[in-house]
């Protein structure tokens, strides 16, 4: 059978595919930056109220030259990594425990629901009183933020593990640990990764707030300090760095890990197999 293939117009080919997507995204950003730069003299406000993109670039260069941005960035990333890791480990452990033990679930459910309703922002002042300003308080706040999405997604994964696999393993004489290792955890893994991705996003937002309240370094502190010292361009640098860092984390770590996990471990059945 012959098929008719219509030629794609060159203008469409330029913006097609993966690079086309990137180009379109970049053109949107460039357009916004151009509009921003042009609007500054029209608005006529001082750089404190409305800094131009060129002020922000100059501020970025200044923060780099003075060594402030690298240190603040590193401090933020260490806190973020520690909070994310500890929160994820705790969330997974509790999720598996609650998912497998009915008594534990009944005992802890009301408490967890109660704690879930209290946002981390409310805890930070108490953490400051208990642990002082700095690393411990910020990491604890992040653990709190990451814990719940990971817990609930792990719980969902554990509870929706295919019973047929669990029964098959049990009938073959597998121990509880083997059932967990070969059936429950692999099927819960996509849920865990989804929870981790959600928690990672929440933690990134929480990081800014925690650093504003409880730190003297970090990107969150830079955002806060910028407005305090009337260097609004620094605040915007901090915001841009946060945004770009999140994009990089998502693109380089979270999304590929999620995709690989679902492909490798997710006991998913696609539509073709179902049919």
């Amino acid at each position: 059978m012959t098929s008719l293939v219509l030629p794609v117009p060159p203008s469409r080919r330029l913006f097609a595919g993966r690079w086309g997507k990137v180009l379109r995204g970049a053109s949107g950003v460039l357009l916004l930056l151009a509009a921003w730069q042009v609007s500054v003299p029209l608005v006529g406000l001082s750089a404190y109220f409305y800094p131009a993109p060129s002020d922000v670039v100059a501020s970025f260069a200044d923060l780099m030259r003075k060594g402030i941005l690298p240190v603040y960035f590193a401090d933020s990333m260490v806190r973020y990594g520690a909070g994310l890791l500890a929160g994820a480990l705790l969330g997974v452990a509790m999720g598996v425990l609650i998912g497998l033990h009915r008594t534990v679930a009944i005992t802890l459910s009301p408490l967890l629901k109660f704690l879930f309703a209290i946002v981390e922002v409310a805890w930070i002042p108490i953490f400051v009183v208990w642990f002082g300003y700095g690393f411990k308080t910020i990491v604890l706040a992040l653990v709190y933020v990451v814990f719940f999405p990971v817990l609930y997604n792990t719980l969902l994964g554990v509870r929706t593990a295919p019973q047929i696999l669990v029964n098959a393993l049990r009938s073959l004489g597998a121990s509880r640990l083997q059932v967990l290792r070969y059936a429950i955890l692999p099927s819960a893994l996509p849920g865990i990764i989804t929870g981790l991705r959600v928690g990672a996003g929440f933690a990134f937002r929480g990081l800014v707030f925690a650093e504003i309240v409880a730190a003297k370094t970090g990107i969150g502190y830079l955002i806060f300090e910028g407005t305090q010292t009337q260097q609004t361009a620094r605040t915007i640098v901090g915001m841009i760095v946060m945004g770009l860092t999140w994009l990089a984390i998502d693109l380089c770590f979270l999304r590929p890990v999620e995709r690989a996990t679902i492909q490798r471990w997710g006991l998913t059945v696609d539509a073709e197999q179902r049919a």
Partner: protein
Amino acid sequence: MRIPVAAASVIAAVLAGWWLAAHFAAERKLASLQPLPGRGSYSITLDFAPERFHQQRMQEAGRLVEVRDRTVYLMDVTPKSLHAIAGEYWVDKVARWEGK
């Protein structure tokens, strides 16, 4: 999983490069001051007027006595702390100081 591994490798390489650059920068800046005493007083000159961040960083290394223009005067600085401070790329010059 190629992207996360590549990204982690890039981060590790940047950190190692950063550490090496700081180490050699410190060696270069402190070469004329060797041997360093157990605790000493030093004047640390920056490329710019120090901000609160730099003063806090200096206070971690020793007792900050005075800030004059682009220079910070420190006392009770251990060789290890001095090495760490001298490794910062924003530190221009480190010299002995008689102290107050």
